[in-house]
Every structure is written in structure tokens, then in C-alpha cells.
């Protein structure tokens, strides 16, 4: 393939990836969920004051709702929020950009991976196909268009492996690999287990080469160990819950018995759950993790993925080892947790699926190329038509139907509610917001772009206390015990008892979302 054509196709695919990740970014999904709102507001707070919502100066970890989120995402969101102001678009932009970078990285990673067993004339073509598959992947688009740390960590993992493979030829790249992996473990929870396992595996596979390049290998280890500083710091401070808090919250070991055999069984069970064809190709898991009636990958990818997998199994070289190292280790961190299978915790599966599928497509194309022209037409045209059909159907489901069907899942209604509160708060002595709503205070701070300095001056977010912002109080509402003297406006969830309703906010499917009462 001529270089100009390769560059042209690369740029076209990159443009497709950018379009699918940036178009209507603030409006699809319909609204930010509480995690996105928290990441956005903390980034805003860091921009304005250098402190998070709790008043902690330049934190490594955001306490947020007690889930101790790594702060890297919020730091990445600072430039976009400084540029565009605090908005849904600005909060999601870092994820979208990292998603585009992941697509570009997939091309180079596939090329390096296939090159492990020697380049052939179709290496570039397979790399372009893998890149295109990631660009249009429902799984990757889903998490590139929301402020999820997992997507950032995935991009770092892709580049970590890419730089490592380049490092086998030019040793200095090992240092960049360790930087990339270092960021990955500081960005999301899954890589904290996945990255060390992958690095051990890579060391075993490439032991001979690595031990020949001791200088850069040790330099990479030193650079990588710098990224362990936050972990050492919190453990030394006796605050290991800031690092491991979320892990212990979701861990199966916390909830299950101390029976060793039982725990191993549950881990094995959790691991196997991630190889469910229905989960991958048909339905996905949590509605927030996929578009309506869509799996994590296209259904038409299934046969090509299988062919690609068989091709990879049949190969005897290093490519097979590195591919299966990634593919088989990816679900391990998630296997230790509850609510499985889980599309976010296993996002690091990508782009292994796309690489195998691309190899399957290439094999099928080569097979078809050897047939008669009539057979090529009879098989090729319907196959391509099916692919195009399902891609178009997915775009319609994601960009058009999802807001309508999943508005509830995406916590729709808070923007409207905050506007209503802002318009009416001067008419009431107090506005009481029910804490049965999902973390309403963060949505108020986010949508009103509440000045972080003022917020922190009043004590910032309280730890397990009653939030008060101006005349707005966030607390449980016991309807029968409330004064209800028309001086207080109550904002309740749709399920709570009420009377004297003054305003109702509905989801797109016309179900009540939240209501205001006096």
C-alpha cells in the first residue's frame, strides 16, 4: 500500500473517530451523571482555588461521594473548563480527546504487535481495520463520550504497551512506557492490578531482550516507581482507604465469607462471566454502559472475532503470547468485584477485540479473494450491507433513541430543577432538597457554577453532614413532620410522599423524575 494512501486512510478514520466522539458531546448522553458532575465541579474548584470540594489542596485522590476517585481526570479537565467554562461539554472533552488518541494508538499498537512475528504486506491494512473498528466501536464510543476515568486509563494502557514494543527496538521508549503505565495506575482502579500483571508477563516473554538493555530498563523502573508515590504517601499517612477504599467497597472479599475455596470459586466465576457472548454482542450490562438494544460490540463482529481468535491461536510466535497476555488478563481486576460482568472495569479489554476482529476480517477477505468473482459478489455485498446496516442502526440508537429511552438512567432533570430553584429561591425562606435524590448538591454546584472560593469559605462539602448552600438545605424530608407553611419549597424524588405540588419534572418517557411541593 502506498504511503500516501495509508496516511489518507489514517486521517479519514481519525476524523470519523473525532466526529463520533465530539459531535453533540454535551447533549448525548442527555445529562451528566453524578460522577461526571463531581469530576467537573472538582476540576472547576481546582482551577479556581487549587483545592477540591473538601478544601484539600492539589489532591491525588478526590473523596467525592466517599468513593475516592483518582484526581487525574479532574486535572485533565482543567484546560477545557478554563477554555469553555464549566459545562457538560468541557467536562467530557478530555475523555473524548483521549478516546481519539486511543484510536490513533490502536493503529500503531496493532502494527507493532503484528510486526513481532515479522511484517507482511497486509500488516498495515489489518492495523487500519483495527483502528477503524475501535473508531466505530459501541463500547469505546460509549465511554469516550462521558467523563469516565476508565477511558483515560485505557488510552494510557494502549500507549504503555505501544511504547514498550517500540522499546524493544529503541530502548529509550521503555521510559515512556513506564510513564504511560504510571499514569494508568493513577487514573483508574482496574489498571492497578492489570498493569503489574501485564508487566510481569511482558518481562517473562521478553526477558532476554530486557536484560540486554539493562540501562534503560533500570531507568524505566526508576521513572515508573515515581508514580507509586501517591500510594506510598497515603499508606505512610495511614490513609490507605484513599487508595484502596473503592476497591474494598466493591470487592467480593468484603462481602463474601473468609472461606478461601469460596473466594477462589467466586473469582473464577466472575472471570468466566466476562466471556458471555450475550454481554459482549447483544445486551451489555448496566443501561448506562451501552445504547438501547446494543451490546458492547456489533453482532456482525462475532464471526470475524472468532476467526481472528483461531488465527491467533494457530500462530506460534510472540504475537500470540502478547495478545493473549492482554486479552486474558483484562477481566482479572473486575473478577474480584461485584456486579459482574462490568463494562467499565473491563474497558481495558480494548482494543484486543478489535485486533482479533481485524485479523478475522483480513482472513475472510483473503479467502473470498481466491473465489470466483460471482461468489465474491454474492458473499461480499450482503456481508458489507449487513455491517453498514448495523453501524447505521447503532448510530441512530445512540444519538437519537438513547436520550429518549435512557433519560432516567442518565439522571435527567437536574438542570431543569436547578434552573427552577434559581428562579424561585428568592420567594422562599428556605428550599429543602431531599437527599433521596442522587447527590443533588453536586448538581446544584455544577449547574450554577457556584464559586468554589465561596463554597469552601462556608466549609465546602461536609463529611456525612447536612449540606447547606445559601438558603438551600440538603437533608432527608419527612413529609408529615415538615412545617409546610408555604415559606419553604421542597424538592422531592418521584417516590416520596408529598402534597401541594407546584412543579413536576418528567423524564423523556413521561415518567415523573422529581417534584417541587410547598
Amino acid at each position, binding site marked *: 500500500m502506498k504511503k500516501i494512501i495509508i496516511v489518507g486512510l489514517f486521517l479519514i478514520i481519525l476524523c470519523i473517530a473525532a466526529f463520533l466522539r465530539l459531535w453533540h458531546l454535551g447533549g448525548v448522553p442527555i445529562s451528566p451523571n453524578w460522577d461526571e458532575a463531581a469530576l467537573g465541579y472538582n476540576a472547576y474548584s481546582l482551577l479556581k482555588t487549587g483545592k477540591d470540594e473538601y478544601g484539600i489542596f492539589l489532591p491525588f485522590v478526590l473523596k467525592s461521594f466517599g468513593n475516592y476517585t483518582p484526581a487525574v481526570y479532574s486535572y485533565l479537565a482543567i484546560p477545557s473548563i478554563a477554555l469553555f467554562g464549566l459545562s457538560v461539554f468541557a467536562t467530557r472533552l478530555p475523555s473524548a480527546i483521549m478516546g481519539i488518541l486511543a484510536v490513533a494508538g490502536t493503529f500503531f499498537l496493532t502494527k507493532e504487535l503484528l510486526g513481532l512475528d515479522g511484517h507482511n504486506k497486509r500488516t498495515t491494512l489489518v492495523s487500519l481495520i483495527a483502528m477503524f473498528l475501535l473508531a466505530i466501536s459501541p463500547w469505546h464510543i460509549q465511554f469516550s463520550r462521558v467523563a469516565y476515568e476508565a477511558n483515560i486509563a485505557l488510552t494510557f494502557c494502549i500507549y504503555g504497551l505501544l511504547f514498550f514494543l517500540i522499546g524493544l527496538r529503541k530502548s529509550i521508549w521503555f521510559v515512556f512506557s513506564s510513564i504511560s503505565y504510571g499514569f494508568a495506575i493513577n487514573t483508574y482502579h482496574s489498571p492497578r492490578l492489570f498493569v503489574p500483571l501485564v508487566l510481569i508477563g511482558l518481562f517473562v516473554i521478553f526477558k532476554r531482550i530486557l536484560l540486554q538493555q539493562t540501562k534503560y530498563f533500570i531507568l524505566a523502573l526508576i521513572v515508573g516507581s515515581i508514580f507509586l508515590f501517591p500510594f506510598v504517601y497515603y499508606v505512610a499517612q495511614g490513609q490507605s482507604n484513599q487508595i484502596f477504599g473503592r476497591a474494598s467497597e466493591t470487592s467480593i472479599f468484603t462481602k463474601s465469607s473468609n472461606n478461601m475455596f469460596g473466594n477462589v470459586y467466586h473469582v473464577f466465576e466472575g472471570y*468466566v*462471566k466476562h466471556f458471555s457472548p450475550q454481554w459482549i454482542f447483544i445486551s451489555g450490562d448496566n443501561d448506562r454502559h451501552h445504547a438501547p438494544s446494543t451490546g458492547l460490540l456489533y453482532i456482525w463482529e462475532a464471526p470475524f472475532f472468532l476467526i481472528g481468535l483461531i488465527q491467533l491461536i494457530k500462530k506460534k510466535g510472540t504475537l500470540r503470547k502478547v495478545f493473549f497476555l492482554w486479552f486474558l488478563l483484562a477481566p482479572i481486576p473486575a473478577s474480584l468485584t461485584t456486579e459482574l460482568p462490568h463494562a467499565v472495569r473491563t474497558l481495558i479489554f480494548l482494543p484486543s477485540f478489535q485486533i482479533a476482529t481485524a485479523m478475522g476480517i483480513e482472513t475472510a477477505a483473503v479467502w473470498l479473494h481466491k473465489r470466483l468473482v460471482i461468489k465474491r459478489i454474492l458473499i461480499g455485498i450482503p456481508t458489507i450491507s449487513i455491517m453498514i446496516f448495523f453501524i447505521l442502526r447503532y448510530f441512530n440508537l445512540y444519538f437519537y433513541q438513547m436520550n429518549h429511552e435512557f433519560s432516567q438512567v442518565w439522571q435527567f432533570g437536574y438542570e431543569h430543577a436547578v434552573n427552577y430553584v434559581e428562579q424561585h429561591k428568592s420567594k422562599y425562606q428556605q428550599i429543602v432538597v431531599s437527599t433521596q435524590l442522587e447527590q443533588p448538591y453536586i448538581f446544584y454546584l455544577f449547574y450554577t457554577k457556584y464559586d468554589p472560593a465561596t463554597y469552601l469559605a462556608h466549609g465546602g462539602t461536609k463529611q456525612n453532614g447536612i449540606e447547606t448552600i445559601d438558603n438551600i438545605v440538603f437533608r432527608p424530608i419527612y413529609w408529615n413532620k415538615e412545617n409546610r407553611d408555604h415559606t419553604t419549597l421542597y424538592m422531592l424524588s418521584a417516590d416520596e410522599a408529598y402534597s401541594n405540588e407546584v412543579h413536576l419534572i418528567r423524564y423523556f418517557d413521561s415518567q415523573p423524575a422529581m417534584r417541587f411541593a410547598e
Partner: protein
Amino acid sequence: MLVLFLALLLIFYFIIKKVFPTIAIIATIFLAFSPFAMQIAMHNIYIELGLIIFLSCLYGVLWMPRYPKLIFLTIFLCILGVYSFQELTHNSPQNGYLFIKELQLSEQRISYSGSTHFAKFLYNPFITTVQFYLQHITQYFEPHEFFFSWSYTPQYINPNLGLFYPFDLIFFLAGIVYLFKKNRLGLYLFILWYFVIIFPVALTNHQPDPIHILPALLSIIIVNAFGFVYLLQLLKKQ
């Protein structure tokens, strides 16, 4: 009930011995102790009877090249088997073969999209039906449901158990690898056997039910037995 179960094991043994003599005993032991076979044997006598008729029919087919007159008995058993399974699986028309709920969702989406030709094309009933048919088929390829916890029809199977033991998964994968390497025809036969039983069952609106796919489960037992023997061979080599 016990006598029928023993008869089932016996006929299964003779069939496997005829086709794959090296794994006949192992496969029969696997069947005897498999969670699905034990629980179904305890649950319903007629199901066992249906399965015995099915296997007898298969046995007849295997002996046909030597004794052509067996064709009459085989046809009789075949009809009896079809009748039994029709009765046993309750596949009566009132249970439905159409994916009505999904089609309604499709209509809603067309309507929400302003009933444009493009929306009608994307959500046309045929494609929607095919998509949900594929969805039904994938329910029969869930490793977790088969080997860890069968959640679809808890009335027959303890939900804390799969249709097979978790360690069977290792034998199953080893069996697939063995067949892929050494007996490609056996692998194709296994795939064909499995799909022939799954395809019609997936047409219904039922939750997946082990009773509906009993003969397919027998094919998994055979693959597991191949895997077990293959792993033993590998161990011996080491």
C-alpha cells in the same frame, strides 16, 4: 426412576462406544454425575423416557449400515421421540414463537423517529426479529449459566449450580482444543448437533430450559470427556 436413569446411562454408553470407543466410560461417568442429568432424573420420569427414546433412535441409526431392516424400528422410535419431546417441552403454540414485545419496541422507535422511511428501514420487523432470534441463540452459549449458575429456569435446576460443574469448563475447553487439533470432523459434528437442537428452541419466547436442549447437553458431555482424556494424555507426556 432409578432404573430409567440406569437405562439411559447404558444406552448412552453403547452409543459412545460405537462412535468414540476411547471415551465411552469417561463420558458415561460424566453423564452419571452431571448436575443437569441428576436433577432432571429426580424431577421428571417422562423426560428421561423421552431421552431414552431419542438415544434408542440414534442407536438404531448407528446400526443401520449392518442391519438395514432397523430402519423401520428407527422410524417408529423417531416418531415416538418427536411426539415425546413435543409433549415434554410444552412447545404448544400458545406459548408463542413470536417476539411480540420486541416488535412493539421497534414500532415505538419508528414512531419516535417520525415514522420516516429511514427509521422504518432501521427498525423493520424482520430485522428486529432476526436480531432477537440471535439474542435468544446466544442465551445457549453462556459459559457462566452452563458451568456456574443456571438462572433461567430455577424450577428444574438449583440456581447455585450450573448444568455442569465449574471444573467441567476446563475439560470442555480442552475438548474443543483436542477436537480442533486431532478430530476436526468430530468438532464439526459437535457444532452441528448443538446448533440443530438450539435453532428451533431459540424460536420460542421461553426462557432457556435444559429440558428443551437435553440432547445438546449430551454433546457437551462428550466434548468434556474428550477434554478429560486429552488432559490426561498431556499429563502423562509430562
